[in-house]
């Protein structure tokens, strides 16, 4: 109990330190005075009396020290002292401080940014009610492919039959529509939603109301629109009078009834949806038959379910399995062998093919970032060590002045803490800055909102990273002996230094070298892939082509009027000077939303019974007849589409080599027939075969693909592709002008050259960004290894300066001195490279998945990486070696 009293008294005393000091001085003075007087009374002369009194007393300074220690909270006070001292030390060595703080900042910053991204992508919940109950569904077909879309009748059945485990399921479809006010159209991203969308998500409107449960069921009824919050600000300037205003969506009048809340960006975490319409309004998109909501073969809706409280995902999946079986039994033709899969909403945010992938990739990146931090810490530890040696003299003096070992250790620990603190602050700043830079982008005109938001999770992670850093940097001194001990011992001749800690240090640098090697390998492989990718045979010629995305539906043009518009557009653009060819296609090559459909193939065995394998699903494109000429796709047999393959002519199609091989092996495919499954318009005849190409991405494997003429299969959203004689940029303005003349107010989007588009969606861009990122990381890692190696070699040289001095004095040739210092470094580097090679081989299967045209075990890349590492490390050792050579033997010997 008294310790409370004592502590209180001590804390209080801290604040009255000066006064107590003065009081003590006075008290001691008075004591000595009294003793002096007593001595005088005993007969001593004045001066002697005083000396005797002082001697009797003991060391005044020591008493004062002892008193003061008792008085305040010595730990706290010395802590402040230490901090001041640390700052002063750092100011005196600006380059060391800069390197250390920057390295730490980068290490911690990288971790913060990475975790920020992972947080957004995986961890941060949707801003809705009970977001962890939400589940997304996907439809897996008999052949193993899966897609996240269902038909409306399927949705209704699933909703009804899985009601035991789901309190409700909502459906929505993503659309790109034109919102026109007074003839000026914007292309916006919308969600067509079922009535229970907002009520199930439990969000409240920022203004007006949201879609009601009663709305959405019937086609084209309920022409109401809810605006997305940010769109309300950008297009309508946050005007509260928008409620009740009438606008046109693809030429159809709707009334704005409300605005969604600010943080809500739809049930798709990253897309900043700009408008919400009832599901029934999906017909405004014009391409669908009136009975689209009753058609079981039209799979176009995404489903999100809310688990009942207490129901686990496993239980739900079991029920869904039963539902899926029941559906596939009831509708064998369409749904044979289908299964329904569900996963937590968060895991399905990025379309990476499976929930496990997202977690795995996140873990991978976090691991890499953590590795970078560990390397940074090892490095700075080494630097601190080198610095400690330089301060040997200072430490000796302090020890002589009475500094206890504990005190000195505490002081150097404080320096470390200050360093870590500075590093954390800069890391935090850097991390959030990087995060913010990645925050909002537009991908293909789709408003993406990847908010690398700074919330408590990120802060906590940052704190953990800092604590870990601090721990590592303080543990290292304990391993190698504290700075103070280090300096004191090194004065005595380094040979006495424990081999153990030396080995540990060297091992750590070897680890750094190994890590850098791995990063260099990855960067090199990616760079080579990039090279290969750019020279890849795509099956068409992408140079000199520029694309324009149009959709006359945005202005409300129907099939007839739209078709006319396109015909005229083609004619007028073709007539422009500088234009060689022009064509239309439903989607550009490697578009992010390709077309695909199930087919019925008429082979020689025309009997279609239940034992036949279910309908293959093939990708295709709808193109105008100049398509193959414009893109220079070689026709291997048969012919291209002509003007005669019009709306009323017999239906035709052109297939690629792989498709011909797959369905009619060994036979001439020309003249064979196939059709879209369940298509009332009947079958199409194959009239041509074209060369294979890449359709979905640069890492495509060969697959079937076919083309149908646009005139026979109208789609309102088209890409106008123009091949120019000169540079594609030259014709862009004129083409825009022509379109504007034909249809003023029609939004023209996605204007980019074919090469640019391939870059974006073909995966070349991603590859390039990854290569750049890997190169940056590799460079950083190498820089770290360089610093680390410099540290270790310097240390060796300094440690053995004495020995080197003797050798030089005895006439040793410079070569042997060089060998002595380099020897240690060389061993470390070799060990590091071996470790690096092992790491690279181990990670080859993972890395290989991202490469194009090159094996992850490519020997040339290994050689390049090794060469780079060796040359860099030689450079690192250069300075210490030089210094070792210049050691003045007299100075070195005198250090004994």
């Amino acid at each position, binding site marked *: 109990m*008294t310790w409370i*009293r*004592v502590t209180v*008294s*001590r804390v209080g005393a801290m604040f009255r330190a000066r006064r107590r000091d003065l*009081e*003590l001085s*006075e*008290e*001691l003075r*008075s*004591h000595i*005075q*009294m*003793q002096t*007087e*007593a001595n005088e009374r005993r007969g001593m002369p004045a001066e002697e009396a005083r000396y005797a009194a002082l001697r*009797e*007393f*003991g*060391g*005044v300074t*020591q*008493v004062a020290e*002892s*008193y003061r*220690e*008792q*008085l305040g909270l010595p730990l706290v006070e010395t802590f402040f002292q230490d901090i001041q001292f640390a700052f002063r030390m750092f100011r005196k060595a600006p380059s060391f401080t800069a390197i250390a703080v920057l390295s730490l900042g980068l290490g911690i910053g990288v971790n913060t940014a990475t975790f920020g991204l992972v947080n957004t992508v995986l961890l941060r919940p949707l801003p809705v009610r009970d977001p962890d109950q939400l589940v997304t569904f996907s439809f897996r077909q008999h052949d193993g492919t899966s897609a996240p879309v269902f038909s409306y009748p399927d949705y209704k059945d699933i909703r009804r039959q899985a009601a035991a485990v789901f309190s409700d399921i909502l459906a929505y479809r993503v659309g790109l529509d034109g919102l026109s006010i007074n003839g000026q159209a914007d292309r916006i991203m919308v969600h067509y939603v079922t009535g229970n969308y907002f009520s199930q998500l439990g969000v409240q409107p920022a203004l007006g109301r949201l879609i009601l449960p009663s709305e959405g069921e019937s086609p084209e009824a309920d022409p109401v629109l809810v605006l997305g919050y940010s769109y309300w600000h950008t297009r309508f300037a946050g005007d509260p009078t928008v409620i009740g205003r009438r606008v046109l969506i693809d030429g159809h009048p709707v009334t704005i009834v409300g605005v969604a809340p600010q943080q809500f960006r739809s049930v798709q975490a990253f897309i900043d949806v700009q408008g919400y319409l009832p599901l029934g309004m999906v017909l405004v998109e014009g391409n669908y038959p009136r009975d689209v909501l009753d058609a079981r073969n039209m799979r176009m809706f995404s489903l999100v379910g809310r688990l009942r409280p207490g129901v686990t995902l496993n239980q739900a999946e079991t029920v869904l399995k039963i539902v899926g079986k029941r559906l596939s039994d009831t509708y064998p033709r369409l749904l044979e062998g289908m299964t329904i899969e569900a996963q937590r909403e968060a895991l399905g945010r990025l379309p990476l093919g499976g929930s496990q992938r997202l977690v795995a990739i996140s873990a991978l990146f976090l691991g890499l970032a953590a590795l970078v931090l560990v390397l940074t810490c090892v490095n700075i530890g080494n630097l601190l060590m080198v610095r400690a040696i330089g301060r040997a003299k200072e430490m000796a003096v302090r020890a002589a002045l009475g500094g206890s070992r504990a005190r000195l250790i505490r002081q150097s620990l404080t320096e470390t803490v200050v360093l870590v603190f500075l590093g954390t602050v800069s890391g935090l700043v850097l991390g959030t800055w990087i995060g913010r830079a990645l925050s909002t982008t537009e991908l293909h005109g789709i408003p993406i909102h990847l908010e690398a938001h700074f919330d408590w999770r990120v802060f906590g992670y940052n704190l953990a990273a800092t604590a870990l850093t601090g721990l590592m940097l303080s543990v290292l001194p304990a391993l190698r002996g504290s700075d103070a001990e280090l300096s004191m011992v090194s004065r005595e001749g380094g040979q006495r230094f424990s081999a153990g800690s030396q080995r540990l240090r060297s091992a750590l640098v070897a680890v750094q070298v190994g890590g850098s090697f791995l990063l260099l390998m990855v960067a090199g492989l990616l760079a080579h892939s990039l090279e290969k990718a750019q020279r890849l045979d795509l099956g068409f010629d992408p140079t000199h082509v520029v694309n324009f995305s149009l959709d006359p539906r945005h202005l409300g043009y129907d099939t007839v009027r739209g078709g006319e518009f396109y015909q005229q557009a083609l004619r007028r653009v073709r007539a422009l000077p500088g234009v060689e060819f022009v064509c239309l296609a439903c989607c550009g090559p490697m578009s992010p939303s390709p077309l695909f459909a199930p087919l019925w193939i008429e082979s020689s065995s025309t009997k279609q019974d239940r034992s036949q394998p279910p309908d293959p699903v093939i990708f295709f494109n709808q193109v105008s007849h100049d398509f193959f000429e414009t893109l220079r796709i070689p026709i291997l047999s048969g012919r291209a589409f002509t003007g005669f393959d019009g709306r009323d002519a017999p239906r035709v199609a052109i297939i690629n080599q792989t498709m011909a091989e797959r369905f009619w092996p060994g036979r001439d495919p020309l003249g064979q027939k196939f059709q879209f499954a369940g298509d009332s318009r009947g079958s199409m005849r194959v009239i041509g075969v074209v060369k294979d190409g890449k359709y979905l991405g640069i890492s495509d494997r060969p697959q079937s693909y076919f083309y149908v003429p646009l005139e026979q299969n109208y789609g309102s959203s088209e890409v106008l592709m123009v091949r120019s004689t000169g540079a594609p940029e030259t014709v862009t303005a004129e083409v825009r002008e022509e379109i504007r003349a034909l249809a003023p107010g029609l939004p023209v989007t996605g204007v980019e050259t074919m090469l640019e588009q391939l870059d974006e969606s073909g995966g070349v861009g991603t590859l390039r960004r990854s290569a750049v990122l890997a190169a940056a990381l590799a460079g950083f890692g190498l820089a770290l290894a360089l610093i680390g190696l410099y540290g270790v070699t310097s240390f060796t040289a300094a440690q053995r300066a004495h020995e080197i001095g003797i050798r030089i004095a005895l006439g040793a040739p410079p070569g042997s001195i060089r060998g002595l210092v380099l020897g240690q470094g060389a061993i470390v580097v070799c060990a590091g490279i071996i470790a690096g090679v092992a790491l690279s081989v181990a990670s080859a299967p993972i890395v290989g998945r991202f490469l194009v045209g090159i094996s992850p075990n490519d020997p040339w890349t290994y050689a390049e990486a090794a060469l780079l590492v060796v040359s860099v490390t030689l450079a690192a050792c250069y300075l210490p070696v030089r210094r070792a050579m210049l050691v003045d033997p007299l100075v070195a010997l005198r250090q004994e």
Partner: protein
Amino acid sequence: MPQSKSEVVRGTLDLMILKTLDTLGPMHGWGIAQRIRQVSKDLLHLNQGTLYPALLRVEQQGWIQGEWKITENNRRARYYSLTRAGKKRLVAETREWQRFAGFMTHLLDTSK
């Protein structure tokens, strides 16, 4: 008794201070030092300075109380006096000491 030497010294010094103040009444540091030297008949060679940290410690525990007063020589000095808690502590500690001394005597006697 696994106490370090310095702890033993500290402990007994505290007791000496309490006893001295009990006997002499309020006294300043020098006076206490003189009294201790006197009683120990000069056998105890204590650096007078070590008294002051001890006085602070005892004051922090609340067993004595310090106050600035004027001495008979018109000098300012800090006088310490025993508190009620101090008096209780003194009684308890004395009893402890006597018990310990008795035990040690008995032990040393019988193991002869």
